[in-house]
């Protein structure tokens, strides 16, 4: 599940493209930071193995501060869910469903989301296992097609590091880390539901490493096929790359097909956020996740996905300039680290409290 989540929107939008031909180094380094961040989450989880994030926020920081921040987290999850929904709707509209209105696409996706939340996290986790296999298979076949068709030009990667480390650094922080890996904060909400609790750390770390590797390989291949300038100019580099494939004039035009598979990634991501919001709300307000709840939150996500940005450009702008600094940094990195420190200090002072 984590794996697909990490792959999520990064696969499609290809973060780090401003670093031109060194863009593949960004995910490589980000993996390392991601692991560090994940360790922070795991240590928090180990202290409170049965409570989600909102739970131990209240425990560590007291009822009012913790409660307020938990509430912010819930709103944050809903917001990000609607952002990702908007992302995928835009993707579908700008590439193949140009006549259908965005509302229809959104409604359909929202229904499936509501159904999946309704059935609970276990059913959802099983479906993601299947999706995992499918996505891996698809990526593998795609890459094989690229190689077989001779679209890979290794010289597109050269010269390496011509523009220096500055660009890479700019891409890495904050976007490179937070977008795929910082969003693992959602898993702090889900981890309490794991059956085999001891394996949380190892599974998570291996998922991060594998995910990072796949992202890196993907980045490399995209650069090789398209060339750095095209990657920079494209809204959806992965889609453009797929449209080049034309083998034996039969295997051609796979873009829509790939796009549909990408929707799986989006679906997984949004569902996880949705779940966190529902679990958080249930935990904070002491409610059981009832059907009305789910429909309400689903509706909110859908409508806000329509309203958060008037156009695709504004949406991307928001995502690249405002959101990382304002939202991602504090929620993903700052607050968990502070939490950990506070918990540690508290433990030193009153060992019996925990």
């Amino acid at each position, binding site marked *: 599940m984590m794996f697909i989540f990490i792959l999520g929107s990064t696969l499609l939008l290809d973060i780090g493209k401003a670093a031109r031909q060194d863009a593949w180094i960004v995910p490589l380094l980000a993996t390392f930071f991601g692991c560090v961040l994940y360790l922070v989450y795991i240590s928090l989880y180990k202290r409170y193995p049965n409570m989600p994030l909102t739970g131990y926020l209240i425990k560590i920081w007291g009822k009012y501060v913790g409660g307020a921040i938990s509430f912010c987290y819930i709103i944050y999850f809903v917001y990000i869910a609607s952002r990702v929904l908007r992302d995928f709707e835009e993707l*579908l509209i700008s590439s*193949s469903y140009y006549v259908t209105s965005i509302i229809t696409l959104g409604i*359909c996706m929202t*229904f499936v989301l509501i159904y999946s939340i309704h059935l609970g996290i276990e059913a959802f986790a*099983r*479906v993601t296992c299947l999706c995992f296999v499918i996505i891996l298979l698809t990526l593998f076949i795609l890459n094989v097609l690229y190689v077989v068709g001779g679209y890979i030009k290794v010289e597109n990667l050269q010269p390496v590091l011509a523009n220096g480390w500055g660009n890479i650094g700019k891409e890495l922080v904050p976007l490179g880390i937070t977008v795929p890996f910082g969003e693992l904060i959602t898993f702090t909400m889900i981890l309490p539901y794991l059956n085999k609790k001891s394996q949380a750390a190892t599974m998570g770390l291996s998922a991060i490493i594998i995910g990072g590797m796949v992202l890196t390989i993907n980045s490399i291949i995209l650069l090789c096929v398209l060339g750095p300038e095209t990657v920079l100019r494209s809204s959806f580099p992965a889609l453009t790359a797929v449209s080049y494939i034309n083998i034996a004039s*039969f295997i051609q035009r796979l873009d829509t097909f790939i796009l*549909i598979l990408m929707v799986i990634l989006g679906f997984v991501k949004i569902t996880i956020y949705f779940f966190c919001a529902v679990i958080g709300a249930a935990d904070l307000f002491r409610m059981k996740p009832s059907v009305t709840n789910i429909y309400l939150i689903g509706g909110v996500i859908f409508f806000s996905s329509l309203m958060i940005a008037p156009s695709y450009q504004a949406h991307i702008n928001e995502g690249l300039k405002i959101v990382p600094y304002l939202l991602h940094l504090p929620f993903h990195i700052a607050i968990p680290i502070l939490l950990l420190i506070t918990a540690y200090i508290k433990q030193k002072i009153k060992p019996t409290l925990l």
Partner: protein
Amino acid sequence: MRQRYLLKSSNKEKTTDCSAAPLYNDVNKNIERLLNELGNSSDVSFRMVESPYQKTLKAAVIHLDGLADENIINENIMTPLIQWLKESNQVVTVKEIEEQIPQILTVSQLTIKKNWHEFMSAVLTGDTVILLNGSSKIFIGNTKKLQSRAVTEPTSQTVVRGPKDSFTENLRTNTSLIRARIQDSNLRLDSMKIGSVTQTDIGIMYIQGNADERIVEEIKERLKEIKVDGVLESNYIEEFIRDDRTTIFPLLLNTERPDAVVGNLLEGRIAIIVQGTPFVLIAPAIFSQFFQSPEDYYQNYYIASFLRILRFGSFFLSMYASAIYLALITHHQGLIPNTLMVSLMAQRERVPFPAIVEMVVMELAFEMLREAGIRMPRAIGPAVSIVGALILGQAAVEAGFVSAAVVIIVAISAISNFTLPSTSIVNAARGFRFILILISAFIGLYGILLMTLCIWLHISSLRSFGIPYFSPFAPFDFKEQKDTLVRFSLPSLLKKHQNK
């Protein structure tokens, strides 16, 4: 369903009648009462025998014509009884007779009962009841014999190599077929009767030690809770005891083949045999089981693996072929390769209907043909099949009603339906096919994908007696993969059983 509502009113009257009322001492009165209750049915036959020496020594032998085995009655009941009556020239009391009767009658099972309810059910199930004048005990001799089919080849799940016997409608025959294959003392058979009017015999077989005790208990609990008038087929049982009442996916496997049942029993599952149908239920059942045919184990494992993958592929194909075709030609024309595009356009030029209408009409026509094929008398079978093929295929295309491509796609999805060994899962595919066609006409591939996710979510949330339905795939159990998509060689599959 209608029968239930009809009988419900009459049910109430009956319960007050059939109680543990005692029998009369007088034979004639008992017989009179029996005939009254059975409404003077013409198949109740009885014979009164008397001792020539003692006038009060009378016995009546009562059985239902057709259900009771005449031979056994003649040889093992009537002959010794009359013989004894001839020879007993001493005066004996009723009590002495009651003690002697078990030694006189030479049937293999003889029970002595006292209440009316037992009397009725004994007569109705085909046993012979011997009434003594002056005694309130009845002697029930086991003379059941049902007219039943001989053991023949299975009609629905045939194989090329492998045993060719199948279950019949008789419970005892079925259990004997299983017993003949598992000659182990751990094989258990529990019985119960379900259905207040039909009193159908149900047998639950499992291997003690292999099967999970909790599931056995659970099944028995659920069976006991069934309150219904009649059980005609194992599907009645299936719909009552399965976990999720509303899903289209089968949660219990049903099979006609004894070797399949035995294989499942060895793996720790439980078989439910119902009197009156050759289809035996197997619980619990998971998704991948419906793609296994016993023939997989009787052939080389390479071929078996290939065929299994083919079955999964054809399940997928039978659900998606029409929907994907429709999505491609209506929403995503860009996905069709150039050369194919040209030929498809040429075909669709002359067809007046929209693609979705064409597709739905063809699918419905094929379903109708299929239903007709099942119910058709043998004599006109070939004629109708020729007519069907010609009309649907050739003439429709030539007249310009449908395009040739649609006929091909519908034929492919229908044929791939038939490769699956279990009809219950095939029905699920058929059901979803129509939904997918409609959705693909509305929003193309996106809709198909979302519907697929919904279907997966639904399957993943199903449980068959507590075991996740999608088991070997998710949660992913690596060891179990040896027998799902591909089949590894038998020595490596069966090793663990030998260790027990």
